């Protein structure tokens, strides 16, 4: 697996911080979507962000991915403060993501879609690629190999040449994960990876997420509605409600937090 980031298994608490979010506040006009939230993501962990509808989870993920620029607060990534960036610059930094409502190229094959994830690893210019022979060829072979390893890993060999538009929903989600993995990210962001799936598909997806984390040592931050899945998968959980952070800790700690229970059981706030 030399083509992919490798990290040995380490004890969870002592791992170094990969990303730190300090006092983030995000406003849309007069609406405060995120209010003064701080937390960190450690290397090699699975970090979940949960909360009821409208809690600001997706906004938070968009801040992490650099798509939204918070009005207040700082984002530190790998020990350096991250300035406001364009999405492609963030991708180059080593952050990849999947989307809640799948954003793939429907007319292209699975292989080509996953190949687009390698775009940050393609260094040859358009002329070299046009001539193709030589360095560009070697580069493409290397990229194809990396992609094939991911296809093998996610068990989508069967649909390698199938246009994505013809695939069922659960498989599209898996292809999206494959494309994100192809970028060999340091940090993988998953926006509701199980939304709309049946039990079997959820189980498959959970296993792949765990395997990705286990095999490549990829740090994963995910948003998810299904509490069972979150509790089983994640090492640590951030709970949000109305744009505020109301809980942070291991699944067991979060589950015992009275404020979290209130938010989920819908107890009236003062």
């Amino acid at each position, binding site marked *: 697996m030399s083509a992919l980031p490798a990290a040995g*298994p380490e004890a969870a608490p002592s791992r170094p911080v990969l990303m730190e979010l300090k006092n983030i506040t995000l406003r849309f006009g007069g609406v405060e979507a995120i209010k003064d939230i701080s937390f960190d993501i450690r290397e090699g962990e699975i970090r979940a962000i949960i909360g009821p509808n409208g809690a600001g989870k997706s906004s938070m993920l968009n801040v992490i991915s650099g798509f939204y620029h918070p009005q207040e607060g700082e984002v530190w990534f790998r020990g350096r403060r991250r300035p406001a960036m364009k999405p492609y610059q963030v991708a180059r930094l080593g952050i990849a993501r999947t989307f809640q409502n799948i954003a793939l190229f429907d007319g292209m094959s699975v292989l080509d879609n996953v190949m687009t994830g390698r775009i940050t690893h393609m260094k040859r210019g358009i002329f070299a690629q046009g001539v193709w022979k030589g360095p560009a060829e070697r580069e493409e072979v290397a990229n*194809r*190999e990396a992609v*094939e*390893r991911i*296809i*093998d*890993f996610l*068990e989508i*060999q*069967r649909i*390698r040449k199938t246009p994505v538009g013809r695939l069922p929903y659960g498989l599209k989600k898996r292809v999206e994960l494959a494309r994100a993995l192809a970028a060999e990210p340091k940090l993988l962001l998953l926006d509701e990876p199980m939304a709309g799936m049946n039990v079997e598909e959820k189980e498959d997806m959970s*296993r792949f997420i*765990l*395997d990705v984390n*286990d*095999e490549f040592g990829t740090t994963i931050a995910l948003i998810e509605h299904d509490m069972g899945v979150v509790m089983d998968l994640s090492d640590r959980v951030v709970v949000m409600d109305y744009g505020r952070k109301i809980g942070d800790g291991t699944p067991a700690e979060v589950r015992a937090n009275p404020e979290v229970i209130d938010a989920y059981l819908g107890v009236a706030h003062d």
Partner: protein
Amino acid sequence: MSHSPDAPEGAAPSIPALLRRNASRYGDRPAYREKEYGIWQEWTWRQALGEVEGLALGFLALGLAEGDHVAVIGRNRPALYWSMVAAQMCGAIPVPVYQDSSAEEMAYVLDHCGARFVICGDQEQVDKVLEVQEGLPVAQLLYLDPRGLRKYDHGRMCSLAEAAETAGSQRGKLLLELEAREARLGPDSTCVMLYTSGTTGRPKGVVLSNRNIIETARASSEFDHLRATDDVLAYLPMAWVGDFIFSIGQAMWTGFCVNCPESEDTMLTDLREIGPTYFFAPPRVFESQLTTVMIRMEDASRLKRRMFDRAMILARRVGPRLLDGERVSGMDRLRYRIAQALVLGPLKNTMGLSRIRVGYTAGEAIGPEIFDFYRALGINLKQLYGQTEASVFITQQKDGEVRSDTVGTPTPGVELRMAPSGEVFYRSPGVFQTYYKNPESTASTKDAEGWVATGDAGFIEDGTGHLRIIDRAKDVGKMASGALFAPKYVENKLKFYPNILEAVVFGNGRETCVAFLNIDLTAVGNWAERNNVAYASYQELSQNRQVLDILQGHVEAVNESLAGDEMLSGCQVHRFLVLHKELDADDGELTRTRKVRRRIIEEKYADLIDALYAGRDSVYTETEVTYEDGRKGSIKATLDLRDARVWPVGESRRVAAE
């Protein structure tokens, strides 16, 4: 066993010895291929020997003893085949286990053979073994695919790659030990132990010696002129004796290349890419391929469809005769060649069958239409009849003597005998040694002279010497008139119609036969769509008048063909009904391998059988069903009972036509 004058000479008394022979004789020829990362990876015979030796040394270092059983669980992959041969090299006995067996079934097998080493394909299998290992003598767990296993306790577990490295510094010492152990292997040492699938009772461990496997492989390879340049696709369960004979026995004897698909789902794509020259498939594979072709032709343009239809009419007439070496006029030859170029050739190519020299089907009866279709294309598809206890081969069809209703003549070296009851007995160099730890079953199956009971009833056809299998011996009964009652034979004939998914025939001890039918929802649903027949449920479609008319036609056609068969004409179906629900394993009506459980159905639907024999026109019934989540419910229905036309004995157009 004394009756094998051509026992393999001293040069190759065992599978590992054959591997060494191949490594020196075929050195750089491909021995194994596996598609991985989208590319076919290849190993030559010399490399394969290196891999096997590496594994064997690793096993020695981990403490594998002579006579140990080594369970191998996983899908067909070269490394798992190598593990089996490596175990043999160490003087241990490989025991391939069905990878889809439940943890419970696996526990039985592991416990029964007392496997000390278990080799798993991936995490799924490792999990199953860990689940049941308590109280089992498993000392070492090995796995091929490390994915997901990183965080497991590796105290008694390692990957095959790591195992091969454990030899390390002691390599020299272990090599001597390996050599010594290998030298002790002879034709009579155990080659493999295979568990029979066990549709009745507990699975039994069939012990096969090197002589069994090598002799059978030799005889059958020579029978079909297999050669080192052949290619096979290894995709059938490794625990099945057929795969062991094809992918290890014959491959080692002949030196041909074993190709492993990328995953179970990609089998058809991989088949097309490899284009095997020697191919085995159970009837359902051929059936589903044919169905796919037919459905795609329905959607093809008018011109293509006409070309296909015309080419097939010609091919059905000419193709089988050409294969059988019969006389065909020059004009027909020319037309067939044109059809090959325009239609048949491309069709074979998309199915991955263009290079096939020898194709076999077995396991169940194959529908004559399906069989003829492939032979019409010019594919040399044949049938064989075999058992685990015989190291597969009992009878097989010679080139030029291929028919859909027989299973051929005895394989060279096999003797056949018919018991008065109709049961088939055989004796051959492939006959198993014993059932492991089960002397009673061994004694009741194999007699002192080496004759083995097949449990199947059949007869040898006058004139041709071909064996025809009728049914399982225990299912064959007598009608009230004394005529032979062979329900499965009739059911198979009915099931050859795509519209009929399942059939159950009753009539043991009765005057006449009656039948239950299940419609095939895909086929009948497709028909309904094309003919604008609206229906809201399976139940409604199954009782549709037009559907019943179609099925009545099928039943009568079967009756007509049965009438032409003197022995079985009494089994014509006089009355039938179409069941309002699909027979289901969850309701206990079928086994997990989808075999009909006759007695249970007979009890459960006693009211329906009575109504059929009472001559009523319709019957109201309520049936309990189990849903997939385990809840129970009931289905109510009023079923139409139908009379089918029967023919007097011996009167059949079909006989005249053939």
